[in-house]
């Protein structure tokens, strides 16, 4: 419990630091948000009004305090371009990113764990000689390139999957949940999730294989053999359970980093998620939106880093349950 509290406090500190860094980043860097509004009718007076309406005319420390206060209230400000609350825009995109990330990670880890465990037993075989470089290649290939190749084959050339978006145009749903669970949504999800999974599976695969090899050399595995236990019981109950510890942690970490790392995949597949909100906001110099998206992605990352730590502690009794004498 004490450990839990300390970890949460640490995450809070990191979040504060990230928020401060973000603030400074967006305030101190060159670039003028009003540039978006340059038009044949744009005047100096309008520019001043605009800066004032976003509080950008105040001194920096004052802006910072206002910013922190708003952040604590969950207020991420108003988008320059859309004039809507940043939080609303982000929350609309969040479910799509979450669906993509979670689906891809689950596929990647389910496959990676099974294949990694299999490869641990296939040491020195031809299968291993092919599978390991193959896994490394998928990690070395740029995601967008993989995505474009898949898209050009499976969508453009063979027409199996839709070429982008999250739903068929104009489809109606009773609720967000109904949308996320609709066949239509899932069908659109296949290609981006597959691409992302293809990119992600290398890590759990190699990690599972390595930890599995390490665990298989452990004395308790030899003991299990001496006990005359079945091969299945040895692999599943003893080896896999121990080997999965770091993989489970990697899953949580992957969840955190994928949330922001999906930027590229979302762009390739026109997937309406957080990453694209960030990219278009940055490109359009919509600083409140870009800043909000960045903070939200960072918050998920920090949160998942924390979850990974706590998860490891929870799964591993050596950490969670203190030694008793």
């Amino acid at each position: 419990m004490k450990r839990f509290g300390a970890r949460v406090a640490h995450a809070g500190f990191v979040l504060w630091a990230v928020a401060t860094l973000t603030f400074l980043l967006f305030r101190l860097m060159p670039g003028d948000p009003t540039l978006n509004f340059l038009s044949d009718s744009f005047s100096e007076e309008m520019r001043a009004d605009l800066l004032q309406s976003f509080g950008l005319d105040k001194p920096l420390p004052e802006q910072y305090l206002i910013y922190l206060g708003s952040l604590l209230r969950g207020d991420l400000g108003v988008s320059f371009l859309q004039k809507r609350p940043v939080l609303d825009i982000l929350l609309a995109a969040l479910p799509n990113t979450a669906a993509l990330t979670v689906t891809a990670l689950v596929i990647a880890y389910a496959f990676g764990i099974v294949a990694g465990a299999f490869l641990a037993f296939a040491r020195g075989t031809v299968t291993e000689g092919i599978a390991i470089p193959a896994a490394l290649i998928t990690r070395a290939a740029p995601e967008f390139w993989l995505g474009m190749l898949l898209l050009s084959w499976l969508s453009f050339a063979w027409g199996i999957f839709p070429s982008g978006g999250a739903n068929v145009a104009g489809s109606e749903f009773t609720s967000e949940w109904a949308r996320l669970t609709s066949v239509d949504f899932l069908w659109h999800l296949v290609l981006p999730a597959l691409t992302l999974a293809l990119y992600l599976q290398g890590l759990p695969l190699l990690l599972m294989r390595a930890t599995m090899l390490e665990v298989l050399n452990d004395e308790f595995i030899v003991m299990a053999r001496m006990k005359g236990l079945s091969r299945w019981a040895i692999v599943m109950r003893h080896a896999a359970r121990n080997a999965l510890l770091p993989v489970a942690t990697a899953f949580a970490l992957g969840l955190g980093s994928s949330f922001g790392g999906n930027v590229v995949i979302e762009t390739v597949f026109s997937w309406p998620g957080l990453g694209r909100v960030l990219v278009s906001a940055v490109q359009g110099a919509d600083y409140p939106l870009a800043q909000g998206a960045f903070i939200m992605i960072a918050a998920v990352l920090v949160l998942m880093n924390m979850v990974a730590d706590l998860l490891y502690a929870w799964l591993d009794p050596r950490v969670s349950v203190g030694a008793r004498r």
Partner: protein
Amino acid sequence: MPGASAVARRPVLPGFVRATLGFLRRQPFAVAGLAIYLLFIVTAIFADQIATHDPREILFRGAYRVARYLPPSTTHYLGTTAGGRDVFSQLVHGSRSALQVGVTAAFFVVVIGTLLGLLSGYLGGWVDRVIMRIADIILGLPFLPFVLVISALTRPGTTTLVASVALMLWPNTARVIRSQVLSLRERGWVEAARVTGCSTWRIIFVHIAPQVAPLAALYGSIAVGWAILTEASASFLGFGDPAAISWGLMLQDAFANQALSRGVWSWFVPPGLCIVALVLAGFLVSRGSEKLLFPKLGD
């Protein structure tokens, strides 16, 4: 006397050669990785000689007619782009920017990461706390979004990209180096050095640093790949160095000009393969050296 010393020194070379040959035989992965590196390094050095055209030049065929989408031929090994530039020459010159980005980023990752890891691990105390806190904060920043934001807010370019990649990746190296240093610090010979009055700096840089160098190199070779992939992703999203000739920018150019729909494989496949090969080389080398460093995993 010279004869004697020659005799004494003689076994060194065959031993070294045998060790190297043994390494090559036992570590085909690492050898393949090194071979790929070598290939690209040679290409980068002799890019001007290898390339058949100026990679930036807009080529014409006839008055005011740009030579766009020429198919692969003996003059244009991989054809030309939509803008009338030679694909092969861009590919060759692209190796320069890839290596430049990869190697400089890796260099800074290794230098910063090792330095801070050494200080943090050896000095401990508040230095350690401050460095590790900063590392925690950086690990709380999303990688690609951060690079994009920095590129967008400053002038986009190779320098920005390399700087942000280095900034984002040093904590991993520093953490590993730190834990290595923590265990080295307790070893007898470090203790001995301390007792005999070696200065702290001397102990850190003369006694400990060489011990952690292979580990740092391992993280460096992975950083090469990360930097190149990041450059490609940033370029693809339009945040790359607009003046560079890079594989990422080539892919971006190809996609923007719909090379996929046109089926111009000779344009958009080679840069992707080059990225895969160079990043893969880093992974292979690191796997090889991993086996050297952690023989326990390798047997």
